[in-house]
């Protein structure tokens, strides 16, 4: 359904997350330079940025959709695809790399039949790589559902991910 330019605050669906997003845009006075802040908030609310959402933001901040799409795809942090129920981030920073992060990643890829950057076909696990978490002191590090785990081995990381998949956290 098209969103009318006249009232960018309202969204045809009754989803209240759109109202929260509208409040964020209002707080930044619909300034176009708040685009990245608004995208951060949108991703936090919705989990990922689908096209409809990007259009809604474009209308709200009075920006061409191309600009919003350009920014959303430029930064690694923003995801245009739905993520799995659980996420495992493998740090590929230098310290982790030297200590065998590539091996952790291959193990995870093989175990769950998923490529880095993708989600398993049952939507349970997203496997992601990060540039550097700044946790070099405890390399190699992974983040499983938001919890940083240091000094990982192939066995310990599989164990940790299994725990998440079966017990929630």
């Amino acid at each position, binding site marked *: 359904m098209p969103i009318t330019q006249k009232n960018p605050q309202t969204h045809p669906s009754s989803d209240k997350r759109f109202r929260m997003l509208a409040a964020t845009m209002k707080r930044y006075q619909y*300034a*176009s*330079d*708040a*685009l*990245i*802040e608004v*995208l*951060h908030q949108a991703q936090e609310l919705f989990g990922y940025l689908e096209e409809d959402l990007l259009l809604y933001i474009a209308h709200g901040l009075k920006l061409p959709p191309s*600009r919003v799409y*350009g*920014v959303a795809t*430029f*930064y*690694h*942090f*923003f995801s245009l695809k739905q993520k799995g129920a659980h996420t495992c981030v493998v740090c*590929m*920073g*230098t*310290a982790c*790399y*030297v*200590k065998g992060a590539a091996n952790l990643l291959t193990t995870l890829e093989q175990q769950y039949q998923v490529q880095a950057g993708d989600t398993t076909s049952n939507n349970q696990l997203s496997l992601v790589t*990060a*540039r*550097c*978490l*700044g*946790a*070099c*002191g*405890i*390399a190699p*590090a992974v983040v499983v559902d938001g*919890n*940083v*785990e*240091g000094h990982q081995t192939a066995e310990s990381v599989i164990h940790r991910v299994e725990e998440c998949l079966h017990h929630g956290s």
Partner: protein
Amino acid sequence: MDLKELKAIATREHQKQDKTCIRCCTVGGCLSANGLAVKENLEEAINEAGLGGKVDVSGVGCMGLCSKGPLVRVDPTGTLYDRVTPDNAWGIVASLPKQMDRQSSPRIMPSQYQPNNHPFFTRQLKIVLENSGKIDPERIEEYIAADGYQGLYRVLREMNPESVIETISRSGLRGRGGGGYPTGLKWETVAKAQSDRKFIICNADEGDPGAFMDRSVLESDPHRILEGMAIAAYAVGASQGYIYVRGEYPVAINHLQKAIRQAKRLGLLGSQIFESPFDFKIELRIGAGAFVCGEETALMASIEGKRGIPHPRPPYPAESGLWGYPTLINNVETFANVPTIIRKGSDWFSQIGTEKSKGTKVFSLAGKVCNTGLIEVPMGTTLQQIVQEMGDGVPDGGQAKAVQTGGPSGGCIPTKMFDTPVDYESLSKLGSIMGSGGAIVMDETTNMVDVARFFMEFCMDESCGKCIPCRAGTVQLYQLLTKIREGKSSLADLEKLEALCDMVKQTSLCGLGRSAPNPVISTLHHFRGEYLALIPNHHSV
């Protein structure tokens, strides 16, 4: 707020600090290693022992020895415990000096690394990290008790902007983000720019893989950055500041937000600070994961809500920066040095370090080394001292082969050059750079062609795509390195690799592309044999 009130807060804190205090690291690596549960159990153990009110338990920032976390220190004795588990809490409480004879739980042995006897600590000289691991980063009162915001008071009430810049220039402080540009000179340029609006930016987009100094400073001592920025703002005539911090650092973001709120509440940020006509506001901008945004013009584009794409300089940000206004942009560590320089004077600062590189440098020591973590050493310390003495060498009796500094923009320094004193000039002479301060130790099992390829893959992914040498050159370099790694190359490929490195270095638009070939060039220079070993039949050609 005036000096009297500031001192009153400090006095109140000092009185509290007289009693025994158990300090737990609750940031960075220790937080990931369950540091928060350790703190909670210690609080419980203290209450069970009936010591509530007599012994304080507080969460502090990074103590440096991250690989041995979670760390707990008992003050005032300074006894350090490492690899503490939540169950150890009762043992630590039983080991408190006045509890010794009670023996309610088995005592815990202190760490073999004690702040007063292990080279990891004794070789350090802390300026930037002076409060890290000592104060609770979430309480402004503790920063004030550690002489915080006194530098700002002195600047606003006793100095004019020119003399502030003069002090910074004379101290010899140089940009800690990697380039080493004299800080005083940069400030002077912005101060001289004619404009009714100016901006201050703190570059906390620490993107170099293997570097976590800025993260630690922001998490452990956020007020130091706010004070440094406010002093800089006064010196150059700005009234608005931005901190551009990586989205990957949630704890740092949280501590900064808290710090800004607290400083505003006490009138140390906002309007008419210390009852002077000086107004200063700071806003946070959260990065969204793009390495190129560490480049200053790309970072400013990102603050403006655009794609992080650099533009050619000149004009430099000092003339035309954020939204076209003169902008001062400095790194976290640079700002962190400022309050201490103002408080202790430029002469004190300039006697530390080497002839051209003054002060200290924070390194994040990581990779194949026993003690990984954060160290702050005077400029001119040798790599030998850093790796062998402070880092205790390679684990399991291995041999160090090289140290990589400067991340994807730097290079690898071989063991035979470990006696070089570390400063800006000596590192660039060796084909590396100081960079932001990541120091990754590599041992005999690390293949240098792999390392070069690893960094090239990084630069290839992170290239913003604006200029062709970087966009296409990094891809070509990566493919050549892959070909060499797979043993399918010839000597001609090696020549092509060298020529391409030179081309990308000379013709790229911004620092990312210009420095992307550095890891290849430096490994080719110091470890050519490893490349040749991968070329089939090279000796017969």
